């Protein structure tokens, strides 16, 4: 029983971070139909930002989210404005190749500047895990879980209750109709890209105290990210959240009750099954 509960806790904690990375990717796809292959690198940049603000200025990584998230939001908007906008009319394939190139560029510049060394960030207060009812809950993951939930809830409120949020959703449903209703689609796209970037980076910031970082860490994250997003339905935010939690849970329970060696295989089998019976993903709209 204890093992089962522990696995559930592990799965939820890891899943919440998966979900957050997935949401960023899916938001961008929903509005702009861009499959952002540089998403993993955005997470990586978020990780490095938190790492440096901790190492150089002794700012707690969780606290640093307060200024890194807005900064990455602006950086994302600038990226859209100056790097992506011109390429979007070229179609999905062009943007795909473009973001793939961007991902390589960012990863390699990072390799050049920060070298291939991996680093970890250890918080002194996070060394010993909490043990409610004999179940180990690592402190950094627990904090990350709470913050990830808050950020995702905030995103939900933003999309549901504000005018810009409604505009984002409208654009995601039908860009032409949205434009006819007087929505500035270009501005919405820019905001959305900023939002996606900020989500990816904040996932990176929250992940740093629990994981290690090096310039090409984005690679391992990106594959999972795509599974999550497609699982939940491309473009669907609740889908990405559900997909992230589901993947975290399946990996965790699968590793304990089946075999660790098949952990990834189990995740992908579930992925294939979902696609087989619900090609649009769990929460995706029927095409």
């Amino acid at each position, binding site marked *: 029983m*204890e*093992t089962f509960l*522990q*696995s559930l806790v*592990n799965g939820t904690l*890891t899943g919440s971070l998966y979900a957050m990375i997935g949401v960023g990717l899916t938001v961008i796809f929903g509005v702009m139909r861009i499959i952002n292959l540089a998403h993993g690198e955005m997470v990586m940049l978020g990780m490095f930002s938190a790492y440096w603000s901790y190492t150089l200025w002794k700012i707690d990584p969780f606290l640093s989210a307060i200024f890194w998230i807005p900064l990455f939001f602006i950086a994302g908007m600038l990226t859209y404005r100056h790097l992506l906008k011109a390429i979007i009319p070229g179609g999905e394939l062009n943007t795909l190749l473009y973001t793939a190139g961007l991902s390589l560029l960012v990863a390699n510049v990072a*390799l050049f500047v920060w*070298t*291939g*060394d*991996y*680093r*970890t960030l*250890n918080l002194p207060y996070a*060394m010993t*895990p909490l*043990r409610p009812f004999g179940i*180990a809950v*690592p402190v950094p993951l627990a904090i990350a879980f709470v913050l990830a939930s808050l950020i995702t809830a905030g995103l939900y409120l933003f999309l549901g209750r504000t005018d810009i949020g409604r505009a984002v959703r409208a654009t995601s449903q039908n860009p032409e109709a949205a434009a006819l209703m007087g929505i500035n689609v270009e501005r919405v796209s820019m905001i959305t890209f900023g939002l996606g970037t900020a989500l990816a980076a904040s996932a990176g910031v929250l992940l740093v105290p629990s*994981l*290690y970082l*090096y310039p*090409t*860490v984005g690679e*391992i994250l990106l594959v999972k990210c795509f599974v999550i997003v497609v699982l939940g339905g491309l473009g669907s935010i609740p889908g990405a959240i559900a997909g992230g939690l589901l993947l975290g849970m399946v*990996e*965790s*329970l*699968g*590793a*304990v009750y089946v*075999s*660790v*060696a098949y*952990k*990834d295989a189990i995740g992908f089998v579930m992925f294939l099954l979902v696609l087989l019976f619900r090609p649009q993903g769990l929460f995706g709209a029927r095409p």
Partner: protein
Amino acid sequence: MRTLIVSAVVMGLLLMGGGPLAAADGTLKIGAPQPMTGSDAPFGDKFKKAYSLAVEEINAAGGVNGKKIEVIIEDHQAKNALAATVAEKLITQEKVLILTGGRASGQAVEIASVAQRLKTPYLVDHPSADIITAKGFEWVFRNNPTGSIYPQAFNKFISEVPGAMPKSAAVIYDNTVFGKSIANSAMTFLRSKNVPIVNDEAYPVNTLDFKPIVTKAKANNPDFVLMVAVSTTDAILLTRHAKEIGLKPRAFVGFGGGFGVEDLAKQLGPLSEKVFSSAAWSGNPNDPKVKAFYDKFYSKYHIYPKEHEVEGYSAIYIIADALRRAKLTGNLDADRDAIRQALMTTDMTTVFGKVKFGNWDGPLGDHYTNQNIYSPEHSVMAQWRGGKLLNVWPKENAETPYIFPDPTTK
């Protein structure tokens, strides 16, 4: 116009002279595929430093029969397929006389196959999977001990220290050639002593979350936890998650790889304390000559050399010794064969220890070819203490008394 003439002359000379001319004037080239980028990059860097120091020393002392030696490092990013590609590139395009390096077993297996096919000697300096020297490849030599020898010091420790024989053991290892051969060797010995293996868990490299595995192991409350990780990031996360979830064995024992490098202590801090590592040694620390090398290395790079640096440095000396004894004619194929012949009669001592290549049977019955016959003496059990990995067993190579059972977990 003048540049044209000059380049025409140069071209002509190159075409006329071909191989022999280049060899007569040029340096003696040694090729080394290593991971210079990616998660294994810190290892590539260790070997680069070790090679550079050895090359500098040898060249400063007049080189090899008057010629300078040179090590050409190619980046394989810790990817097996890429390792084969760069090995082939070093052999066919860079025209190196001999290969060394490789870093991890998965990549070294690929390099060994290429070396055998293209008839180029390959001196393995660190990759340890048994299979590399158990395929009957006559072009492949190995100075360091094989993976199945790594746990020998651990076996001695649990057999010789009173009360240390495990009552049960959880074995967690990565599903690479390295991970599997070491885990297999350790488990074979434990089974022969009737120690129940309560967990036999293989995980894929670059696992982001070890909590599920250690949760599973915790349910069995193992007396010993044995861990194999080829990648340091895996070693770090595995140890961290094991302690977070609350595994409380009498001893955490790693087997080289990520458990033998300073980064483990640097990144884990107090969590690395008292963790054991049974692996290839770094030379005998009680030997004054080895000590002198450690100091020299430290004064140059401000790092105390461990296993990897000592192995890389020694490999260049073994190669230089073979190059010195081989009759080099300038014909690449003949020279490579001459070097292979010379390696077969190697009999020397480096900072890593004695070396002589021979054919013999390993602890799991693998038939080795060109494996250092002194390898069984080159395994040592060490323990992380205050951020340093200090030898604790066998006694004659110990730097400090062991601490067992682990007071932080028991």
